């Protein structure tokens, strides 16, 4: 039996050290490098001299109307999809937490949307959305529900709604998974006691489930918002950001700067802006939920 020689502080830090080192190497240093790039005039052009240019890149992207509209699109996309995914995910988690017939089947299929790679999923939906021979229109027309060939990805703002639908379809089950894990930590006797006191289903939800689910909701909200705000493969594969840039997200805009136009300086600036905004969002969430920190 080994006595604990180290005090709490050292021990705690030791356990965290390995992952800290890895995260510093893989995430922190490249982040610093990118921040540095955003303050420079980096270019691949032959014979170019690298210089520090302060906030010039940031000024230039904010005066680019395409950047501003990409930012607006991203905000709208994030807010709407996260809210709907959370709501639907909560309902799904509540359902899955009970025993039902077909529950095994549901539990298995619920992860299918999420198991598909985003880009492939988007390409498939794009084909299903095809107005002239895609599954959705042909079924709707065959069933006589409409005679119009809806241009799902070719109209503004319908294209954005379609894209949001794909995102919600894909990720609601992920939300359900996170919330379900949280649901299972709630002791059953709490519910029993409430039932004895005569509390109905809804007030049990409000007074017991939701408050105790706060950590999981926060987790789901935080990570899902971060992902939605950085959505790239979905618009890239589904709409190329069209029609006329109406579904272009910040990440797609940043991708173009980096890898299509080879402007690593402005691309880095876009990434930094994304980073700052997500940080603000995260702080906002944590403030609201007043997490139990210690």
């Amino acid at each position: 039996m080994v006595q604990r020689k180290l005090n709490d502080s050292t021990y705690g830090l030791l356990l965290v050290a390995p992952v800290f080192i890895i995260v510093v190497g893989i995430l922190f240093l490249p982040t610093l490098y990118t921040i540095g790039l955003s303050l420079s005039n980096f270019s691949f052009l032959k014979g170019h001299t690298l210089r520090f240019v302060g906030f010039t890149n940031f000024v230039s992207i904010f005066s680019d109307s395409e950047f501003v509209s990409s930012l607006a699109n991203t905000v709208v996309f994030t807010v709407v999809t996260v809210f709907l995914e959370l709501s639907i995910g909560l309902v799904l988690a509540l359902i899955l937490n009970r025993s039902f017939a077909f529950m095994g089947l549901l539990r298995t299929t619920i992860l299918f949307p999420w198991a598909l790679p985003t880009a492939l999923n988007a390409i498939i939906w794009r084909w299903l959305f095809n107005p002239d021979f895609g599954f959705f229109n042909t079924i709707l027309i065959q069933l006589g529900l409409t005679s119009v060939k809806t241009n799902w990805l070719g109209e503004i703002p319908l294209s954005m709604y379609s894209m949001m639908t794909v995102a919600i379809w894909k990720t609601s089950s992920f939300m359900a998974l996170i919330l379900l894990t949280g649901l299972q930590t709630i002791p059953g006797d709490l519910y029993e006691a409430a039932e004895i006191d005569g509390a109905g289903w809804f007030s049990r939800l409000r007074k017991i489930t939701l408050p105790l689910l706060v950590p999981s909701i926060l987790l789901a909200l935080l990570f899902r918002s971060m992902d939605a705000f950085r959505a790239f493969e979905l618009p890239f594969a589904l709409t190329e950001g069209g029609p006329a840039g109406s579904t272009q997200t910040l990440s797609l805009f940043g991708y173009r700067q980096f890898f299509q136009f080879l402007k690593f300086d402005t691309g880095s600036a876009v990434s930094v802006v994304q980073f700052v905004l997500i940080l603000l969002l995260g702080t906002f969430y944590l403030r609201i939920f007043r997490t139990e920190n210690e």
Partner: protein
Amino acid sequence: MMQANLFGRVISLIAKYLFVLFLVVLFFFPVAWILLTSIKTTGDIYAWPPVYIPAHPTLQNYHTVLFGSKLGRYILNSVIVSSLSTLSVLFFASLAGYSIARIRFRGRHLLLMFFLSMSMFPQLAIVPSLFIWFRQIGLINSFMGIVLAYTGLFSPLALWILATYFRTIPLEIEESAKLDGCSRLRILWSILMPLSIPGVIAASLIVFIQTWNEFFLALVILSKNLLRTATVGIALYPGEYAFPWELITTATFLAIVPIFALTAVFQKQIIGGLTAGSLK
């Protein structure tokens, strides 16, 4: 009175069944579409009026993909990379998650915020710098390299999930173990982890699936033909303009079979089994 009640109950039961069935169909239909397309001939895929279920299904596509391309190898690579990454993340994240959740040390909140904020940076921007650096230290075209990268990328989320879950386990269990003389690590591995199976499985699945589907880092770091992962391998089928649905749906279906197998095996652990709150 009784009859109305019974009737109401039956209706609500049927409604519940239908609803669940509806959900199953909703989540399953693109996968069904992929499967159906993979057994169609080219003519059926592009047929008008559309052919939903082929009258003459064919396995030709599977033949082409399995024997005419390296997909089998790519899927094996993905299995290796994702498994190693998951194990690696679980190892590092559980240590850190336990520490942050249970050990009172100065700066633990700050550390959690650090990990969280680091995972917020747009990944695309990191790819070039990671590549340049990995090239310099010789980690290109090595599974070790990609597993290291994925560990960095996905540890924060796993850490957070595990820490959140650890916090919900009653302190008394740990206290009594300490009194029995268990070391910290022993508590973690033998007591906390088994009690946190839902959280562990959730975190593992998340990491496994995300590393399985990750594209850009895998494209750049594993750029030898034989090292390609499935997701990158499937990207080799489309041409500049042509898009061979026959091959892509087949390859996609084959590539997600391992994931389906995993979720089918573990769905009980994640969701059923433990009734809410019975933590022994």
